[in-house]
């Protein structure tokens, strides 16, 4: 390896006294002293969430208010810290959405384990699980930190997509289930 010796310029007298540097530093700090603060007053002011932010994972419904999740358990399978636990269940026959698909009976995400990696969202074939903008999760007990299905839907809200999968399924069924 070639070693290139760099001639270091000898310090001038002014530099060796260290005083110009001190004055320069003082000028910089004084400038910051009068500059506006950069602190965000957090509970009153909220940070702007950038696009693609990975917040708390939530479950979403489609525009008609139906569950999108079909409890395929792919997210449970892919989840690296094993934070997701799904109990699959059938959709009862008297339900509006009753058909061949399933829905989760219970869907728990343990937020003490979740690492916000977003793999569940990535893997979900139904676009049912989304990491949304909420960034602070807190609770007084461990149990509180486990989001159950009701809470997940409450956090998730509705995804305004245009798939209308259940409608299509229903129409298909009414027309002889030909797909």
């Amino acid at each position, binding site marked *: 390896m070639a070693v290139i010796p760099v001639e270091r310029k000898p310090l001038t007298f002014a530099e060796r006294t260290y005083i110009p540097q*001190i004055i320069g*530093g*003082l000028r*910089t*700090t*004084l400038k*910051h*002293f009068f*500059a*506006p*603060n*950069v*602190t965000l*007053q957090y509970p009153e002011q909220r940070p702007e969430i950038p696009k693609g932010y990975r917040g708390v994972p939530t479950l979403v419904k489609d525009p008609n208010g139906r569950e999108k999740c079909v409890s395929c358990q792919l997210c449970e399978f892919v989840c690296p810290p094993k934070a997701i636990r799904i109990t699959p269940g059938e959709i009862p026959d008297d339900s509006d959405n009753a058909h061949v698909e399933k829905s989760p009976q219970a869907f728990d995400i343990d937020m003490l384990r979740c690492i916000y990696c977003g793999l569940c969202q990535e893997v979900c074939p139904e676009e049912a699980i989304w990491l949304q903008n909420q960034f602070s999760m807190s609770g007084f007990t461990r149990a509180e930190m486990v989001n159950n299905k009701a809470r997940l839907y409450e956090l998730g809200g509705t995804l305004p997509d245009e798939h209308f999968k259940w409608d299509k399924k229903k129409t298909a069924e009414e027309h002889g289930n030909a797909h």
Partner: protein
Amino acid sequence: MFQFYFDLPLIVRLVVQAGAVILVLFPIAAACSMAERKISAWIQGRPGPNRTIAPVGGLLTPLGLAGRIPFLGPFLQQMGIFQLAADGGKFTFKEDPVPGHVNKFYFVLAPIIAMIPALTTIAVVPLGAYYAVINGQTILQPIVLANVDIGLLAVFAVSSLGVYAVILAGWASNSKYAFLGGVRASAQLVSYELAMTLSVLPAFLWMNKPGGQGTLSLFDAVQMQSGVWHGLSMASLHGMWGVFYMPVSAFIFLVALFAETNRAPFDMPESESELVAGFHTEYGAFKWSLFFLAEYCHMIIGSAVCILLFFGGWNLLPWIPLTTLIDWLSHVLPFATHPLFMGLVGIGIFVGKVFAFIFFFMWVRWTLPRFRYDQVMHLGWKKLLPLSIANLIFYTLGIALMQK
């Protein structure tokens, strides 16, 4: 009006006066800790402590009530005044553990020793001046607890005892970090005391030139800097401040002051990145807060002495001494020459300057990184000491030549 006060025995009056000065100095030193936090915050682009407000129970206190006044209350909250009060309460009432491995007697003694020199040095520092009529003559008198001939020497002597608190704390803590802090403090103090003492000598040489007063009084040091411009001559400086005609002295004094008060960039005894917290590693609660109050008291006294020697004391601006200012004011306000008014104006100007100095201390602290220990020693012994000796010789020769 105040005759009953002057009828009191002298010792009672002195105790009252000293108590009053300490009662002012102590909260100012405490407020300095909040100022430090706010200034550090502003320099770093933060708002600093601005949330605390008096609880419901605190409404019984004047400060708590002040917090509910519109505009003023939120302003005080923004300035962290309630945080200061809360800190004070916390330091007073929180548990004060004494670690098992310490030398208990000296461990408790150290913070007490820290406070003694910090609060006693103020006795010889003049705070302002007023016109007094003595034997029919109007004389400018200093406002000072003890107007002694050796004022400066007394400040130096007593404040140099402050280092024992650090040494003792370091030693009694029986821990390596604290111990290293104590050792550093003693070495640093001895190194910089020399340069500091030598740096002020030119000022007093000038004052005590042949035919001069023969005094080390701080009041006379200010008197030398008060006056109006009549052209350059040796007899008086005509209102020029010390810093203009001996800038090197002022600079050395200031640097040595930083070292003596253990402030950054010379906070070797503390150096939190190397020694945890240095000499007060093992301390907590009230004892710890005493160390901090002592440090701020030292800063206040040190900057007061620096102002008296080099920055014109209670004179408003160079060439505009307090007497001239009062003269101008007396055209507008008939009571301007009243001792009470004049004293308050003088003290106001002086305290304002002290605050400016304390701001400078903090500004430097949040600007400069800490020196390495060998750099501190190098600077003290090989740079500042020869410089101050050369400075002294220069002024000695200069004064001798100008006397001819």
